[in-house]
Each structure stands twice: as structure tokens, then as C-alpha cells.
């Protein structure tokens, strides 16, 4: 067997280069950071299974019925469809999340690892809403969308899952890995007007 271990690679390698771009001077309108190493998995409820209770018991999360975020200590469940959630975790990194879910929810839910299949970006800053509004046709006004709200939609013809983190405002955006480069082209042609910064943390 080959002795070389496989090294993970970001789909934005060589694209997301830290620095300040676009309109110069002042606060950057938006700050962009890629969230690497997250555990990501889709959780689909089995017919009539007592999933809710099990999730509460094993993860201390109340599964949301709508497209919002159920937050727990080690992971959160982002609703993206009837009986379907995207589980997201920092502590249960990468594949380990799917493995953990598969064990603890055996027979109650169908689990699919997605940790390799998504690029997750965090956009935050005073103009984050304005940047997103150029591609996302969802009302992000505080009255309509707040921390804990989530949505599955498209940005510039690319499927995204997005949920709000805080009032900065900050949003996490999960996109399909294969379109990361195209998404980056859209993002970096939409954000310059406000000045943006790419960071690593």
C-alpha cells in the first residue's frame, strides 16, 4: 500500500488569497473567510421514526421543523427540507460527524456524509447584506431573517444553503464544492464596490 497519506485540499486553493480588495480605505464592507474542517452531513428522517427524541437525547438539540438552525453544544442541525437537515459541527470534524450520527441515529435517520462536498464561507460585515442581495433573492432584513434563520436557495445560479450567525451581520454559506471557483468569481465581482477583506480566521 502507498505510504503517502492523502492531504485535503480546499476548492478555493489559490483563489481565496488573504488581503484587502476593492474600494480602498475605511472598514471593509464585508469580510470573507472559508470555514475548513467542518463536519457536514445530511440527516433524513426515516418514516415514522422517533428521531426528534433521539436527537434531543444524544445531541441536546431540538430539531427545527422549519428552515432554521437547531443549535447544540457540539453540533447544529440546519433545516433544509421536510424531514431533512444539514448537520454542522466543528468538534466532530469532517467525516467523524457522519460516522457519529450514523451510530447514534441508526434506524431513525438516513445519514450521508457531505463534509467533502461543500465549501463553507462566512461573510460578515456591515455590507454583507448588500453583497448577498446581488445574488440571493431572499429577504435578509432583520425583520424577516435573523440569527438562527436559514434558507436554501441560489446565488447567481448556484445552489446554496445559508444561515445567519449573528447581528454583525454574519452568514455561513454552504455551496457545492464543484462551483466554488465560479462562486468566487461572482463574489469578487459583487463585493469590490463595498471593499472586502479575505482572511483565514
Amino acid at each position, binding site marked *: 500500500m502507498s505510504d503517502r497519506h492523502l492531504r485535503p485540499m480546499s476548492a478555493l486553493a489559490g483563489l481565496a488569497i488573504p488581503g484587502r480588495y476593492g474600494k480602498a480605505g475605511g472598514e471593509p464592507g464585508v469580510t470573507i473567510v472559508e470555514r475548513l474542517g467542518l463536519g457536514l452531513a445530511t440527516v433524513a428522517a426515516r418514516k415514522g421514526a422517533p428521531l426528534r427524541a433521539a436527537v434531543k437525547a444524544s445531541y441536546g438539540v431540538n430539531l427545527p421543523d422549519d428552515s432554521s438552525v437547531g443549535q447544540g453544544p457540539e453540533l447544529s442541525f440546519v433545516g433544509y427540507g421536510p424531514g431533512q437537515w444539514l448537520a454542522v459541527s466543528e468538534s466532530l470534524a469532517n467525516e467523524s460527524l457522519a460516522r457519529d450520527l450514523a451510530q447514534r441515529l441508526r434506524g431513525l435517520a438516513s445519514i450521508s456524509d457531505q463534509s467533502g462536498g461543500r465549501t463553507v464561507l462566512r461573510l460578515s460585515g456591515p455590507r454583507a447584506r448588500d453583497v448577498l442581495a446581488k445574488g440571493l433573492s431572499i429577504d435578509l432584513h432583520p425583520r424577516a431573517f435573523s440569527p438562527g434563520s436559514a434558507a436554501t436557495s441560489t446565488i447567481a445560479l448556484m445552489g446554496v444553503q445559508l444561515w445567519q450567525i449573528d447581528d454583525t451581520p454574519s452568514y455561513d454559506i454552504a455551496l457545492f464544492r464543484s462551483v466554488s471557483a465560479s462562486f468566487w468569481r461572482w463574489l469578487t465581482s459583487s463585493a469590490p*464596490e463595498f471593499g472586502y477583506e479575505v482572511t483565514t480566521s
Partner: protein
Amino acid sequence: MTSQPNRLAQGGVIDRTKKIRFSFDGQKFTGHDGDTLASALLANGVRLVGRSFKYHRPRGILSAGSEEPNALVELRSGARREPNTRATTIELYDGLDAASQNRWPSLKFDVLAANQLFSPIFGAGFYYKTFMWPASFWEKVYEPAIRRAAGLGRGAGLPDPDHYDKVNAFCDVLVIGAGPAGLAAALTAARSGCRVILAEEDFRLGGRLLAERYEIDGAPALDWVKAAEAELESLPDCRILRRTTVQGVYDGGTYAAIERVNDHVAVPPAHQPRQRLWRIVAKRAVLAAGAIERGIVFGDNDRPGIMLAGAVRAYVNRYGVTPGKRAVIFADNDDAFRTAADLADAGVAVAALIDARKAPSAAAQHIAEGAGARYLSGAAIERVGGGRGVNAVEIRDAAGKAEQVDCDLVAMSGGWNPSVHLTTHLNGKPQWNEGLSALVPGSLPPGMSVAGAAAGSFGLASCLAEGLAAGAAAAAECGFAASAGKTPAASDDSGAASPVWLIDKSRGKAFVDFQNDVTVSDVKLAAREGFRIPEHLKRYTTLGMATDQGKTGNANGAAVLAAVTGRYIGAVGTTTFRPPFTPVAISAFAGHHRGPDFRPARLASSHAYAEEQGAMFVETGPWLRALYYPKRGEDPQDAVNREVANVRERVGVCDVSTLGKIDVQGKDAGRFLDRVYANTFSTLPVGKARYGLMLREDGFVLDDGTTARLAEDHYFMTTTTANAVKVMQHLEFCQQGLWPELDVQTVSVTEQWAQFAVAGPRARDVIQAIVDSAYDLANEAFPYLACGDVTVCGGTPGRLFRLSFSGELAYEIAVPARFGDSLARAIVEAGAAFGIAPYGTEALGVLRIEKGHPAGGELNGQTTAHDLGFGKMLSAKKDFIGRFMAAREALTDPARPRLVGLRPLDRADLIRAGAHLIPKDAELVAKNDQGYVTSIAYSPSLGHWLGLGLLARGPERHGEIVRAFDPVRNGDVLVEVRPPCFIDQDGERLRV
């Protein structure tokens, strides 16, 4: 010439301290900040601005807004040239460069003005009656001439260099227009705390208040505008969009608006778009778009110097410009005669007020006295003097006496038409209002209300009152406590017109539609020929079909039609307004999505690696895939041959991640697959994969692929790259719509897995070097069609499938996509010892064609299982999608074109896909067309070209020689019909 001879010393909302240099037809001028090109030209005494469409008549400036039909120019130059741009809406900027259109050699002297002499021939629809002989002349002679003459300006001819944005916006109340009514509506709505967007086409708020000398609460109306603007700015959830025209109304409270972000500068600044498309979703909308003035139809009414009265007031009051030295007012409503007062106060001599109405008007008379002008009622202009600009008019008074009056400015008004356009975009029909003699809004789009002049309320006080009320009502309907409050004090005289549509005794061409040169005689001719319905009149004469869409002409057109056909104008009907409200640049609707960004590109995780290897890429649906990997100096065919040979003789690796991958889980997963696949999957043992065929409900083939069973309740399905999305949607329909009782969950994991095919005699050696040693991959332990979870390269979780598309000993190995790049490199590294080489989709195609596997070319939506030789796969025991319809005779008829292999009789010949198959000695005509070549490849293994095809009764004709006829590429070769599989028919290699 002295700079700006017609500019008043003070007055108007322009900044005289800022001088702006611009040029028109190469001549240099200066204007001021706050000018439009039109106001600046008038300030400089320029009256002649363009030439008309058909007769090349001299044309000047008619209006002061976006309804302008005449003053169209080519703005900017080079890649930014914009033809047909309305001088009345172009904000003056330093270095502005504009040119007149549709004239040769010069604006002042235009040869084609001679067309006028032939106008009796060039009447409405003349081209339908001629240019027919000889038939062949149309394309060669007549049409090119017509096309060269037609079309006003010239396009840039170069790619648009600017950037465009799209923005999604949401609000409770959208207010369209920021005149008194709109500002009032925005105020009450925004004060209630609801989210308001106020969109104004102009670069200044105020609407007609900018053009008039009204007072509100005893102070100049503009003070009120300033206050309103300031208050709206201060409200957090109120957004004011200036230079933004609401162009269209769409379903679900969706409005399209175009913001001209940087049209008022020479070039958009860095990081800035030229224009923005606002996709506004509003719970309620208040239309306060005002009204558009119409002219009067009399002879030579298109002469430069003849303007709309409201426009004259706008130039005097807003821009501090006097469009003439000696004026005549010709109107049928008191509102227009106020123009005399404004002109007189600006020091312009007013010769006469010509009131087309029989009954004298006290108000008008009073204004006349104040302006020191004569007042004639029941009078009309019957003749206009002056060629490139009016210099006199001949008036006939009520008593029938004619006299000539010198003047260089005629302010005309036939009344006002409420701007109902946006109320009709969802099929609403405006209604004729006799009192106003104009169309007013009829049925409205859901959620829209109308206020002010747009609703037919012409008095300022009522505009304010209606605005306040409409804003409050809209906010209330959105659940906010709002009140209209008290209406500020303002005059309320609504100078409604009692129209005199047509002065038919007048001499010269009387224009109805200025831009398209439609005259009264054209309307008469059309009516005479039977085009009496306004929609027919429009199409026959092109009335209202120009860039202004008849904003100033349609009402007069309908009136003239009524007059000449002796009908009541309210009964003749009208034509339909359609989006956009004003013309919109195509770029603005495209935004980011052009050039390389037209559509997103999906890249496999090994893309970077493939690039390093010098791969050529190809667009396959949304994906960019490696086509082949040429070595330096190697031509494409050699590269592909090498890659294929390497797979057949040693081993190759290919990224197959683009295949659709779907997790199908749940305790009914097997039963579910039995119903969506034509063959059976519930019996598939865990750890095994099987080829599956999917049909559409109409019985034709939808897709194919292999599906593996990873656990009792977990299948892993693969689809073709092309149909991945379609199949996922289909599965979801079956599961949610047809059989919701089944416990089955489908999730796309296409993005999760980077999957590589490792194929060739040495494949096992390579895979063994990659997969951790804990796994026994011996043929017995892991036979053909086996599958299972593995770990690779020391612990990375992966999946291994023993599948073969190439017909060789082959595996597909998958790891989470973020390891894809690394795995590609590891495989090549580990395979080096065995002579591994990466291969692309081209070689992949060759390998499958050599094996006779159907793919894209055969799965084209027109073929049946039976056509592809899969008839036996259709299970008779169970229900499945497409089962019933697939059994129909027409789908199983042996005479249908069915899959065969083809090879050239002369092995040196080239076969091409798309060639048709015709019996050897038959005539080359349609009735002998028996099928076609679906896929071709040069087979390095066999040393000649070969192909797959669909041939009538194909399977019965193995060994027969037929022609592959390809006239569009001059191809005509004899080919031998064979079974589809050319290599290793018994499939021994893939089982070793």
C-alpha cells in the same frame, strides 16, 4: 458664439458656478450642473437636433422627459456608443460627446430629405404593395436598401465594456414616482415604520414641481420637496432610488426597475456598475407616475421650435433656459396658458395665446393680459413658417380671418394623458374618461393603487391629498398604523382639456407619431384600406411603435382614427402598453452572466492536477472535464490513441466524479428501486453492484447506470453526467408524489465523492497499492461487480467498486472530494510502476464504443430498451415506471432502428457520427433512410474506425454492408453491420 445665449441670469435648479463642457456634432458648448443635454442645447440656441425616420425631416426638442420622440442622439463613442438616446434624459457631464443621427452628409443638409417629395408613394404600408417583382430581387436589392435606410442610430459594434449588477430588494410599499403625489405617499407610508422604496426616474425628486411655479403652504413648492426629501432620508427603512425607472410589473408583486448608476458620468468609476437591475418584491405599490402631455395635430407641427407647453415651462423654470425669443401658445386647456406667464416673467415676448376652444376662457384671457399678449379663442395654427425651425405661424381666428405671426417658439398642449402604463402590464385595461378626454387606469395589478396625475387628478392639492391617502392605506394594508394627516395648502385648478384633436384645414404634414413619421394622411389611408381597429392601425402605420411607444402620439392617433371613421373616440379602443416603460439596455438584464460567467462551471476535484498535466478540457453540460492529456508536441488523435492503448495494455486512471451519485436509503429502498428501474434491485446482495435501466413513464429510456448495495437499507445509485439532475428530480417525484408510503430517502452525494476509474490489466496492482492492506482484493474475495467500504492511503475512508465501462479489469474508487486531488496524485504515483497514465473523456468514449456500451449518443430520449438491446431487462413480474407504455407495438416493432456495431468495409475509411445508414445499392433518398450512426471512435486496439448506430432491424442484419452517408461532410463510406461489442465479447478480461 456667445456661451449659453438663452440662459437666464438666475432661477432654476442648476448650479451656475459649475461649468460643464460638452460637444454636439463636434461643436463645443458649455452647460451647467443640473442640465440635461436638451436643456444645455437650448441654452446654447441649438434647436435642430435630429432627422426623422422616414422623411428625414428636421427635428428638435419636443418634451423635457423620457417621452421624447424627436431629440434622439448617439451618445458617447467607441464601445460605449449608445444610439437613439433621448437628449431630454441625458444628464450633462463634463466631456459629454453626442452626435445627431440618421442624416447624410450633415444634420443641416440631409440628402434623404428628398424622401418627402415621394411621400405619397411612401405612405402607410406601401412596401406591402410593391417590391414583389422579380421575386429574387427582394433579398438582393430591395431589402438591403430598406434596411440601410431604416434604423436611426448605429450600435457600438463592440462588446459592452461596462459592468452591470442585479439587486434583489424587498419592501412593504413601493412608491413609483417622486412628484407631489409620490413624495406624499412615501411620507405617510414611511412614517408608519413600514419598509418603503421610492423609485424616481429623474435625477431630482419633485416631478412637475421642478417645472412649475406652484406654492405649497404659502411657500415655493420646492421647499416642501426639500423638506420631504430630508425627512424620507432620515427614516431608516425608507430607501430612495434616484435615476431609477420602474420598467415592468410582474406576477406576485415583482417589479423590475433599472437604476442608471453611472450614466451621468463619462465612464463608471472603479468597482462601480453602469446600471443596476432592481428586482423589487413589494407587498403594495403606489403608482404616482404623473401624466404625459400631448401635442396638437396640425400641419408641420414637427418643426424645431414647436414644443410641449409643459416642457417649455420645465426649461424656463427648472433649467433657467428660454427656448425662444418670441413665443406663441397654442392649446386647448388653461393649464398650458400658464406657460405665457412663466415666459413673460422670464423676459420672453409672448405674441399670442391661441385657444383652440370655441368658448373664450377668462383664466387664459387674464394670463394673456398679464403677459401683454393677444388672446384668440376658437383659433388655430394652420401653417408654420420656417424650414429647420419655426419662424412664423399663420393663424386663422374664429371669424375665419388668417394672419401671420412671427415667432421662434410654439408652446402647444392638447391636454395630458395619465401615465397608466404600469397599470396594464398584467393585462389591466385602461378606461376612457370623458371629463379628462384621456385614458385613466382601469383594473389594477394586485396590490397596486394609483395617486395623483397618474390617476387623472391634475390639481396639485388633490395630488398631495391622494398621495398621502394612498401611502397611508398601503402601509395599513401591510399591517402598520398609518394616517394620511392633513393635506398642505395648495392650488387645485385642474386645467382639464376640452380637446380639439385635429386641425384638418391646416397645410403641410400633420404628424401624429413624430418618431415613426406617421401623419394624418397615413391614418386616413389605413382607415380607407380597412385598418380601422387601433391594433390594426398601429401595425399598418407603425403608429406608437417607436422607441417612445407612442407616449405623446397614441391618444392623438386614436382621436384622428375616430374622427376619420366618424366614431366616438371612447369607443374606438386603444392599443396595449407592454414592458419596459422606457427602453432598457440588454446588458442590464444580463448582469454578471455573460462571457465566462454566462453559467457557472463545475470543476472536478482533480481539475488542478489535470491542468498541471496539460489536459485539454471540454464542456460537458455544466462540467469542465479533461478531454485528453497531450504530451508535448503530441496531436490530439495520438494522445487519445495512446491513452486507450495504455488502458488496454497496462492501466489508466480517469476522473468519473461527474456521474450523478445518489444515496438511496430506508427500509423500502429496494422496493423503491424495483419501481423506478426496469430491472430488479431488491434481490441484489449487499456488497454487489448491478447495471440498471430507467424508463420514462411514456416507455422510452430515461437513463442508465450502476447501483450498488452498501447495506440492507442503503443503495448507492449512479446516473449519467447529463441526466444527474433530471433523475434526482424524478426519484423525488416518485417518492413524494407517487409512493409517499414507502420508507425511502434519496440524497444527492455527487459533490461528496471524488471517484476515479482505474482500468486495465494492471488495475488490481494499482488499487492494491492504494487501498489499505486490511482489504483482500483477490479476484475471489472481490470479484467483478463487488463493492464495499474501504480505507485508502493509511486510513482515509473510501468506497471501492469493481465496475468496468472499458471492458478491462477495472475499479472505481471514491474518497471524500477534498481528498480528490491528493488521491489522483497518489494513484498515478502508485501506478507509475505499472505504466499508469491518466485518460480523458475522449478515451473513455473510445473504450466504451469498442465495448458497445450505449451512452449519450444512444440515450437520446428517442430510443427504447428494445432499440438498445435491453428488451430482456424489462421485468414482467413487477410494476415499474414506463412498464405499460413500453409494451406498445410502436416501441417494440422489430422494424425500428436498433443498436448495431459498424466498421468500415475499407478499414482505412473514416465513419462519422450523424451519417445516415442506407442500403448498399439503394438510391440516396429519404425513403431509403434506415437509421444513423450514433457514436464513432478510432480504435487503436483494432487499428481502424468503428461506430455504433441505430439501424432498422439491425440485429437481424449482422454481416450486411450498408452505406454511411454524410453529405454535409461529403462522407459516403460502406460499413459492415456487426454486433455492438467489438472487444472481448465474452467479457473475460473484466472478470480476471
